[in-house]
């Protein structure tokens, strides 16, 4: 199946010519690029110019042992028909990165709003980081690995009198 991955390698060459990145072609139409936080925005601008207009998704993976958040931007180019994933690492304690709204518009804005709510990542330049799904949630960001939801539920709404709940908790 590995016919000539010419287009994919060319993408990596274009990118690594300008930025210090670690690129990898996983299979046809799948290119993975890791870049450090500082020149993320410049890379995104450059890549948008290359034709990657469609921001498919932004996702965060939480690595508590390493103390980092790993941000992945999945971009699809309608013309090249390749999916480029840009990965970057953020410090876990104060995860701040500048927002890509200027590049991909409301599509990025709504993804960032969700990640801010579920992981607590700060996106500079995105004013509307108001709660999206969990309106009046006062607990810590729930999707982080070290959020012990069992403990949280036990404190918040464990009602001793209810026999079924007691059976569940003890």
């Amino acid at each position, binding site marked *: 199946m590995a016919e000539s991955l010419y287009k994919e390698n060319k993408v990596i060459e274009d990118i690594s010519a300008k930025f210090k990145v670690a690129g990898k072609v*996983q299979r046809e*139409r*799948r290119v*993975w690029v890791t870049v450090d936080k500082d020149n993320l925005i410049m890379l995104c601008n450059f890549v948008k110019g290359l034709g990657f*207009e*469609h*921001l*498919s*998704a932004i*996702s965060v*993976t*939480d690595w508590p042992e390493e103390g980092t958040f790993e941000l*992945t931007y*999945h971009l*699809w180019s*309608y013309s090249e*028909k390749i*999916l480029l*994933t840009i990965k970057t690492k953020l410090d876990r304690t104060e995860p701040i990165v500048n927002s890509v709204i200027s590049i*991909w*518009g*409301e*599509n990025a*804005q*709504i993804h960032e709003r*969700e990640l801010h709510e579920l992981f607590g990542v700060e996106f500079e330049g995105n004013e509307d980081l108001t709660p*999206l*799904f*969990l*309106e009046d949630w006062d607990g810590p960001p*729930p*999707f982080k690995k070290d959020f012990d*939801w069992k403990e949280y539920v036990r404190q918040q709404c464990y009602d001793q009198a209810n026999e079924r709940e007691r059976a569940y908790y003890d």
Partner: protein
Amino acid sequence: MIKQMNEKELITIEHIEPIIPEDTDYNFYFGPAHSGSGNFGVKLRIDGEKVTSARADPGYLHRGFEKLMEYRVPMQNAVLSDRVCILEALNWNLVHAEAVDELTGVEVPQRARYIRVLMAELSRLQSHLIWYGVMSLALGFDTGFKMAFGYRDYILDIFELITGGRVYPAGYICPGGVRRDLPDGSEDKIKRVLDQTEEMMQKMKDFDNIVFSRRTKGVGILRTEDAIRLGATGPVLRACGVETDVRKDDPYEIYDELDFDIPVRREGDAYARCLIRGREMEESIKIIKQVLERLPEGKVREPAKITPPSRVKIPEGEVYVRNELARGEGCVYMRSVGEGEPYRVKLRGPDFLHMIPVLEHLLKGSQIADIPAIYWSLNICPADMDR
């Protein structure tokens, strides 16, 4: 007689100020508790009959699948995956199963790949029928609603026969292939159902002039660059002139061996979206017929027996899978660190973008009477937005 509850026993609900329109400018909740909107709310600011601003209010169906899937093995996640959006349960099964297959690198038997495409396309057909039913109900055409759900029931009978459940296939398309082989005699049952669906599509063409063209032409127009900027995918994007379909651009399963074409229109209004979905149903029927002719023999699942959760190991790696669902592009990013459960799963539903950025953009400046037409022409499903 009914015991009169005296004042004390009544639960006192703190007084809620109802919204009485002072003059023409007031709030209007096309909200969750509303028969025309599904469990999802839009806060509209209305001046007279025009909508001046719209703000989506999601979160009524947030079940946290991405967190749940971190505690279960892929086989259990397959059962979970069809609840992400039950209107196209099998398509979501396919996305999840492919992600796990690519991670584990298992060689899915050829027969299973054909059955997977067969079931995914049947699921797309019934999803478009649901859209047609609910859209005509929103426009007041009751007959379209009753007939669409009536004909969709024939497709559900096929699901009942093959997967054992009408709406919930319970992970029929699972990592490694499909859970059960097709019962014998199901091929001609499927062919009969296709004829019945074609019968319904002929009726849709007959009803077209009364319902759709008058209420949806020139309504909710989306320009091409807005569509891309707002993240629209699938029929919504193809209605604005962008010729893209994940089954053609980023082929998966056996779509590259099948021949079908992608309907594209330029106008970008609600009527174009309706026409595209009608044409897509014809393409799906074409695909199903091709699959039925070339269905090979053989096994239907790579590890025939289900390995118990304690001994399941997913090799380390990360993968991003894109599929063409009935509503748009559905993707799964799965990251594994070598244990039995995936380390991180990110589900990207098409409606996450259609219901918040695209809907807010389209509703601004529209008439009140056009809200249902715009709302349902996007074929929204709150389940795969909230996840």
